[in-house]
């Protein structure tokens, strides 16, 4: 876990000790409530299909904005009002991966979904949530590749 961004590592540590299903659910609901709306300068409804997470039935969207320090700020929208787990996942990714070193964000594995939601998550839902993680990871990987190209040409 050493390679995870600090905040994510801390959060996963919290979940590691949470064996009670209800306690975990309460914490996740609290996190879901913290999801911030997408600012207008990023996107307005109807959201573009490019930002849509494939196969996430909760209708999730992900955007990445470059920050001055070279990291990325992530934004999320979950359009299904019953997509509570997707909202919790989005809030977690925003709070733990926005502004973190791209090299670390680019390596965050899908498995964090299982670390966070435990085996309470249905397979289909788990895959949808992993799709959100994959989007965030891909954005970081793309930025890293884009920055490497000019260096290689020098």
């Amino acid at each position, binding site marked *: 876990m050493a390679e995870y961004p600090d905040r994510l590592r801390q959060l996963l540590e919290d979940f590691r000790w949470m064996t009670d*299903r*209800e306690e975990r*659910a*309460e914490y*996740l*609901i609290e996190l*879901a409530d913290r999801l911030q709306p997408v600012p207008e300068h990023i996107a307005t409804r109807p959201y573009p299909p490019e930002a849509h997470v*494939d*196969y996430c*039935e909760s209708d999730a969207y992900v955007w990445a904005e470059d920050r001055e320090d070279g990291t990325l700020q992530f934004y999320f929208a979950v359009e299904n*009002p*019953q*997509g*509570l*787990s997707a909202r*919790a996942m989005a809030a977690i990714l925003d709070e733990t991966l926005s502004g973190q070193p791209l090299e670390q964000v680019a390596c965050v594995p*899908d498995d964090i979904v299982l670390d966070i*939601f435990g*085996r*309470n*998550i*249905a*397979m*289909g*839902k788990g*895959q949808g949530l*992993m*799709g959100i993680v*994959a989007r965030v990871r*891909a954005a970081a990987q793309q930025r890293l590749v884009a920055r490497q190209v000019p260096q290689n040409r020098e």
Partner: protein
Amino acid sequence: MTTIDARGYAHPEVLVSTEWVADHLQDPAVRIVESNEDPLLYPSGHIPGAVEVDWTADLNDPVRRDYLNRQGFEALASRIGITPETTVVFYGDKSNWWATYAFWVFQLFGHTRARIMDGGRLKWEREGRPLTREKPVYPPTTYRAPERDDSLFRAFRDQVLEHVRAHGQLVDVRSPAEFTGERLHMEGYPNEGALRGGHIPGARNIPWSRAANAEDGTFKPADALRAIYLEEQGLDPARPTIAYCRIGERSSHTWFVLRYLLGFNDVRNYDGSWTEWGNLVGVPIEK
């Protein structure tokens, strides 16, 4: 939306409306059960007095790939405080997809006093009806259940193989991309837990959600359902039918529609579904 009785279903008595449920919240002969895909929904707020039955924690055997046995079902029934005389009303997210799954498992134990709340959680919420985070506690009951009987409503792989050879009626309720096998090979997406993509030969592809109205999760009226399953897809209600999906959850929704709403005589759910068939050695697959 027309009332349930006016929609022309073969067995309208298996459905109750949100209004009916609202009128029976205090009825000791009724137990409301929420079953969801999203494990956060019930703790975030549920119909007052409703208990949760979770498909992973409550309905599956913890070790083997199978459903709970008689003892497990009796313990579950005791926990939620029901007897064989209790009318159990299931509701949930995703147009009652998981509610019909729980309903199906209850039928394996012969609990016929079972209903689905039409529209599920979505309709209840949209109507602004009350939700609470308070978890009810009911006195444990003693429930003597029969042994689980899989013969009527559940199909196993060898039976499916025989069914295929006899050119029996099959319904694949997955998405078109899963049906064609395209989704298995999609880059960056975890596979469906199967080594091969495609579908069981002869299956008609009728995605489960076509039976529901997306805006409020209710079931479409019988005319609209007949137009899809009978006229468009050519299914015959008199012929034995097997429905499947990936693990048997979505297909229990279609099982419910075919059996109770359209009155198919013999419908079984193949819960092994694609995660079994797509991994079996030597079985026929169509793309």
